[in-house]
């Protein structure tokens, strides 16, 4: 059903000048038409498919002919991947420790800017089948220390989501605008964002999930950072943290992971001027830049990470803003696996899309950026996929010491594996212990010590993601919200 976008209540000049079909067409096909090579509408290009097919046939053929040699080659390559990714993660961690890589705008400075000088800020809030979080959205909007007349909040709802629309209409007091996105494929968040973006009237744009609880000064801080930063600073990503930290072991692990991601890895990427895969929400953009780069890819299920890459490729920079948005950590195992497998699938998609023209990518990013892109975007799902293989081999070895395990680990590879095992695992667990110490939540230290169990969950999700990448590349598995405890509004880090 391609019904028109309904704007209720109409606070804006009606966008009737643009037809709804045209809005939808641009939302879906905008990027695909302007830059088909940047769109994930096709999973793999014909040349990529050919390459994968030839590579697979060759690998199988060589394995049949020389099983030991092929296994040794595979193990060697895998170990090199482990070592390089591990070293890179450590470098990122250290980079973020050594350099103050976050953009800091103090409360005083944020409030010092008169309301009249602030730009109109468009806040896009996509939601689907989440009537229970609408009340939280209105509360979050009310908490913003930003002049109401300069806030352009758009709640992006699917046209067939009657419950959420009803809840939104009921809660609406003129502080946000309901945008009904016509039902169409792909049913993804980025498509809704593109739809909303075309109706935006702000020069700055941000994205929140409906259940988010952003720092009330975040919009002011972001506005100052974007205006006062260099011209090529196109985006600032606020830190994400969770309000239901202590709900169960999964939320604790998730909290530690987010803390490492947003306080160490992303600032580390910024410090190294590397491409930054954006987080799902609380990223603040200059609208003009969003329009220029083609906004979000509606076919990519981690449209945020993909957009971060595209910004970097076009010569724009992303900063990490020292301002926290509290979210709800996934507390349910199945729900968590669905969400994480979507993220991994999105990373694989993003990796595949940007590697369609590796030489061009290399030229655009340079050797350092090219390597960092592959290590971070490619390395993240790849490690999670490799882990089960080597856990199984380790288990075999511990139980039965089969000769073939020893034979596929020649000396050099064995030493690398030992470094990964003894140093790498400890380093990653210790990073989580450090984050637990920093967050000062009770119970996190124990969760940090049990991190390897979380890696098992990650690997499950990665396997699911890899399968879905082949069979359902653009399918968006909705994360169920509202399973967590209500937030307590205190700074967590």
């Amino acid at each position: 059903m391609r019904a028109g976008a309904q704007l209720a209540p109409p606070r804006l000049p009606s966008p009737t000048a643009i037809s709804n079909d045209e809005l939808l067409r641009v939302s879906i096909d905008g990027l695909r038409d302007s830059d088909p090579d940047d769109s994930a509408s096709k999973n793999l290009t014909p040349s990529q498919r050919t390459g994968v097919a030839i590579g697979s046939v060759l690998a199988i053929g060589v394995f049949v002919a020389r099983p030991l040699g092929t296994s040794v080659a595979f193990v060697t390559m895998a170990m090199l991947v482990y070592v390089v990714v591990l070293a890179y993660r450590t470098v990122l961690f250290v980079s973020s420790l050594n350099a103050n890589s976050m953009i800091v705008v103090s409360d005083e400075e944020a409030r010092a800017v008169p309301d009249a000088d602030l730009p109109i800020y468009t806040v896009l809030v996509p939601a689907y089948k989440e009537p229970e979080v609408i009340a939280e959205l209105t509360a979050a909007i009310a908490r913003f220390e930003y002049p109401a007349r300069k806030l352009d909040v758009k709640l992006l709802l699917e046209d067939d989501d009657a419950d959420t629309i009803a809840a939104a209409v009921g809660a609406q007091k003129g502080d946000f605008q309901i945008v009904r996105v016509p039902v169409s494929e792909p049913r993804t968040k980025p498509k809704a964002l593109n739809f909303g973006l075309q109706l935006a009237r702000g020069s700055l744009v941000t994205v929140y999930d409906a259940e988010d609880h952003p720092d009330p000064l975040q919009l002011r801080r972001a506005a100052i950072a974007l205006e006062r930063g260099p011209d090529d600073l196109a985006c600032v990503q606020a830190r994400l943290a969770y309000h239901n930290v202590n709900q169960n072991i999964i939320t604790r692990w998730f909290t530690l992971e987010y803390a490492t991601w947003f306080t160490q890895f992303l600032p580390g990427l910024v410090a190294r001027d590397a491409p930054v895969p954006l987080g799902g929400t609380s990223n603040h953009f200059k609208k003009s830049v969003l329009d220029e780069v083609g906004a979000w890819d509606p076919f990519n299920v981690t449209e945020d990470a993909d957009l971060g890459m595209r910004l970097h490729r076009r010569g724009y920079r992303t900063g990490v803003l020292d301002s926290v948005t509290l979210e709800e950590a996934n507390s349910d195992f199945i729900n968590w696996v669905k969400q994480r497998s979507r993220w991994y699938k999105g990373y694989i998609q993003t990796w595949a899309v940007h590697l369609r023209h590796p030489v061009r990518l290399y030229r655009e990013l340079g050797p350092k950026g090219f390597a960092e892109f592959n290590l971070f975007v490619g390395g993240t799902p790849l490690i999670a996929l490799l882990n089960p293989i080597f856990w199984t081999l380790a288990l075999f070895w511990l139980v039965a010491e089969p000769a073939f395990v020893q034979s596929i680990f020649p000396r050099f590879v064995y030493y690398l594996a030992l470094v990964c095992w003894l140093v790498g695992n400890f380093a990653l667990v210790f990073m989580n212990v450090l984050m637990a110490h920093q967050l000062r939540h009770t119970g996190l230290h124990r969760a940090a010590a049990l991190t390897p169990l979380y890696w098992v969950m990650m690997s499950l999700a990665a396997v699911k993601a890899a399968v879905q990448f082949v069979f359902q590349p653009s399918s968006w598995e909705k994360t169920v919200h509202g399973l967590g405890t209500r937030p307590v509004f205190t700074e967590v880090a």
Partner: protein
Amino acid sequence: MIALLERFQPSPEAVRADVVLPAILPGRKTTRPLWFLRRRLTIASFIVYLSSALWMLYGLGFSIGDALSRSANARAIWFARRPTLTSMGFGWMPGPVLFQSIFTVVLEPIGQAQLSGPLATSVLGAATVYVLVSICARRGLSATWTLLLVSAYAFNPAIVFTAANGMSEQMNFFFLVLLVDGFLRWSDHPSVGAATLIGVALAGCMAVRYETLVLVPVVAIFVGLRRKSWRERLQSAVLVSIPPAYVFFMWILANKLIQKSWFWFLHPSGSTSASALGLPPPDAIFLPAERTLRTAIEFSFSRTWDMSWAILVVAPILLFRRRGQRLASVGIVAIAGVYPLWIWYLLPQNRTWGNPRYFLPMMAVVVVAIIWLASDRRSRVFGSSRWGGAARAALLGVMVIAAVNASLAESRVKVAAVESEWYVFQTALGQPLSGDRVDNAERWRRTAAAVDAEIGKQPKSLVMIAFGRAFPLFLFSDHPKRFMIDSDRDYEATLASNGKNIDYVFLTNGTSSALGRLVGSGWSEAVKTETGSLWRRDASAANPVTT
């Protein structure tokens, strides 16, 4: 909007304080002169260290037995008959051997495996210089003072010697510098970054030196004291102790797995590491004749005066610092104090040889402390425009005097007899040589040539050796794969089978010490005992091969 925002900025200074865009705005990193200086000084120090190493090794034919042992361990890891990590024996902390094994891979094809240790220490020495300049840059010290203070440390002849000799000190210095830097950062602001640095540095120290067992609790206490509540104190202390505890656990686990004893390192004579922990003789000229706590304290003070004179001057300055800096200052003195304290503990038990190098780590601590003092803009003395320059010059003078003092001490036979450092220093200073030097390397080279000639006659012949004693033979031989060494899986079985499958047993007479004392015996005794039918005569290193 930009114009309006700029209008509301109270002053450039205030904006810098409030809005921090460090990674995005250019010019916030180390200033160019210090980048430039860091690279140049690092390269210059590396050249000096490596040149010194080559001069000592090939010019003077000087090498310390323990350094040769580490090089042999590193070679065995890659090029032994059945190479494994266990070749290093784990009687010593494995850090230096693991690091230098990387260089062994490159040096083996050109037949210079014995250079792996000196090359590793040269690299680590230069890395230390790199870190020191970085600390100066972060603390805002000018390029001139950075150059002078870091050079006074880097080109201290005693430091150059440790950076060239292939021993473990330089790796310890590298991590000590990181540790003190992390500790001072923690004292400035107890952040996760500082805790990470402290933890990693302690782990590094633990991978290198036994003394770290004392260092960890000392550092943990001072780290904890920086926090307010007891809970935070405990958490912080535990946090920085986790990495070194992990390293220690892995190390004793290796002892257990390889040597069947968790604390094998306490009696490592059967390890593949050189048997260094033999008892020093009662008449050793370099130790007090009577070994009591009192003489141990006197001895420690004397050696500290010789090797790290600067700490004796800087410690009182640190202890009388202003209130906000006092905890950090006392902490630095405590960290430095661990090293003489270790000797106080061991000497009365007659369990240390009291080598002068044991007192040199204090120089690595003191150089960071001096940088900290010299860059303190809030200090009435160092921050004063009138006295600051003179005060920094005084600190530089302390470093220079310490360097001269250490060089003269190392040239005295009475101080530096254990490892014959005096020979290098007397030669370098142009002094007439005044002692009998230990020269294991040349003897062993000749031995290796003899053994190579013997086994060359029989292709695929196999020589059983006690690695802990005969490691130089393995190091200098052209046929490393022809030696059955202690870490080989079939070693014990071969012993038990009275030498089945081997062609030669290499025996040492167990009196290789320069001081005429037995320095352990380990597996070589087992070879004698258990392979009686193979052993024909108790051969010395000069005539070692028995069949």
